[in-house]
């Protein structure tokens, strides 16, 4: 599997300057993305998951900057890119993106066809009639009927789900190797969500894509992901195969996250929620960022940042609980239940 790393992030630090203060949004994150996989990055709002993937495309806001680390892709270190010209060799062509809200991510004054054509002309090198044909085949690809007619229409003539299909068509028209889906279903109707996820999966298969999902919806994750990275306060705290993270989570934050799933709640009892708030990233975080919200935190969690401990070849977590010297701390009852289910599942 090691040879198949398509994108490798190493010790990435991202900072923002806001009103003279420095916000440390991504704190030394490393992550490998494997060719052809579906990786889901999960975490609550503000955990830095969007910022993290934006750095792969050089799309940070003007006040954000990389402060060390590497992003290795195709033999280049994207973290060294300085000019727009360099980024244009990556954006769309290598890595494309589907944004959260299809109602706003299309230009209201341009026809759907024109907006897809821009990508076709840029990345497939087609012109005129050939480009037009490519646009129609893109639309057909994403399941839009009567592409000839629809290409001439404007975004307001499409429903939300249809617009998201168009946004996916634009991404596909770039012929990328990696497709980043930033909360692709959050703004959609529940009935449409599954269709869109199916469509992304189909496109992944057809065009041999690697997909990175960003989401806080664990339902989406279970549906699509091969592998999960759990993010908290600008750091990845646990990564593993989908089953490993769902059925045998190791980091207390992952425990808390899973415990708050409504599906695990007991009828009649209030739903579990994580106490407290995430740390203020304007200040330096000491130790384990989750420790102040973790009732079972160890003393060392407040002092020293834990390293990653390997659980299995594919599963690792950043918590002192995995240190051989650590006292035995039992995960919450919900998690034990999950673990049992996992064991039963795999026989």
């Amino acid at each position, binding site marked *: 599997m090691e040879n198949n790393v398509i994108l490798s992030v190493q010790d990435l630090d991202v900072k923002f300057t806001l009103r003279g203060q420095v916000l440390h949004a991504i704190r030394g994150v490393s992550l490998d993305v494997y060719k052809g996989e579906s990786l889901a990055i999960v975490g609550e709002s503000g955990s830095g998951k969007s910022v993290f993937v934006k750095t792969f*495309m050089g*799309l940070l806001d*003007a006040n954000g900057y990389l402060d060390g680390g590497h992003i290795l892709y195709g033999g280049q270190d994207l973290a060294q890119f300085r000019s*727009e010209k360099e980024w*244009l060799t*990556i*954006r*769309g*062509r290598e890595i*494309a*993106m589907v*944004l959260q*809200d299809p109602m*706003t*991510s*299309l*230009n*209201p*004054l*341009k026809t759907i066809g024109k907006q897809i054509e*821009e*990508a076709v002309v*840029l*990345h497939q090198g087609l012109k005129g009639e050939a480009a037009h044909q490519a646009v129609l085949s893109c639309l057909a690809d994403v399941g839009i009927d009567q592409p000839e007619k629809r290409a001439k229409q*404007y975004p*307001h*003539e499409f429903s939300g789900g249809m617009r998201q299909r168009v*946004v996916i068509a*634009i*991404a596909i028209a*770039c012929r990328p190797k990696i497709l980043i889906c930033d909360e692709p279903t959050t703004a959609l109707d529940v009935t449409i969500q599954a269709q869109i996820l199916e469509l992304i999966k189909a496109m992944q298969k057809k065009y041999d894509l690697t997909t990175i999902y960003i989401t806080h919806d664990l339902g989406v994750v279970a549906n699509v992901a091969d592998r999960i990275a759990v993010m908290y306060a600008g750091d990845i705290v646990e990564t593993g195969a989908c089953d490993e993270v769902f059925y045998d989570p190791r980091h207390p934050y992952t425990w808390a996250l899973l415990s708050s799933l409504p599906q695990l709640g007991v009828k009649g009892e209030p739903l579990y929620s994580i106490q407290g708030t995430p740390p203020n990233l304007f200040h330096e975080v000491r130790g384990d960022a989750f420790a102040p919200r973790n009732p079972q935190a160890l003393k060392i969690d407040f002092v020293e940042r834990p390293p990653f401990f390997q659980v299995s070849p594919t599963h690792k977590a950043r918590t002192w609980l995995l240190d051989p010297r650590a006292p035995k701390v039992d995960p919450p009852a919900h998690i034990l239940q999950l673990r049992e289910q996992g064991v039963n599942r795999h026989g």
Partner: protein
Amino acid sequence: MAKYILKRILRSIITMLIIIVVVFSLLRLMPVEGYFENYDKLSETQIEVRLTQLGLKDPLPKQLWNFLKQLSTGDLGTSNIYRKGVSINEIVAEKMPISLRMGLISLTIALALGLPLGVLMARSTRTRWKLWDKFGTIFIVIIQAVPSAAYHILIQFAGSQGPLKLPMLFSQNDPRSYILPILSLSIGNIAYYAMWLRRYMVDESNKDYIRLARAKGLPGSAISRRHVFRNAMVPLIQYIPNSILFTLMGSLYVESLYSIPGMGGLLVTVIKRQDNTMVQALVLIYAAISILGLLFGDILMAVLDPRISFTRKEGSR
């Protein structure tokens, strides 16, 4: 689209008719002195005779009907005081072209300088020092904050003194004398267009579809041109027909400062001199221009913004 435009035109005609009736009726309330140059020196009978001649003794609906008939032939009536016995059409035809010429030249200049300045400012907000944005903002704030009279006088003074020695006052046959008034007329609009275009462009460039355009690998210049600028122009373009039409009416202050014999200030003059028929004619011209300006603006918007022509709900905007 055709249906939308037709509806819009029909509504404009109705609005205009209402305005004609209202203005006409209001002016019947004015004292009858407004129809005489030398009211004080006339006897009762002379006044009676004159009013009957003018048809002002007829019942009101008949007067209105006659006025509408007269208007429909394009005749605005006759001046009774400002220039006694001269047709108002003639007075306006003499003055309007002067205002129009000055106005159109200055509007062209304002657009040619104001829009690029707005683009430069908007684009520079993404750079580190935001030089153009700062420079432009200073200019705009000065123009907006200083009373326009102050910089008009400054322009007139600075231009006519010193090395330039441009003529201080307007004269039709001296092209050099056009320079200062045109500068005065355009400078406010330069600031206006730059300010709004910058603002709309900054608004647009923070929208999601611009992020998507960037993510698909479109170069910054193409995004700026094809997406940001074009979309930012839509709300501005709505007002351009109005601006063009209103150049017909001239500028009160600039025209009197450079003694340009245009339309500017004509309305104020005839109100002061109580020339009823002229007040009526000019108010109607102003109204017609406003209505036409809005009509053309809306049609232009419908052409540019596909969302409008398909809006079924009337009056949703």
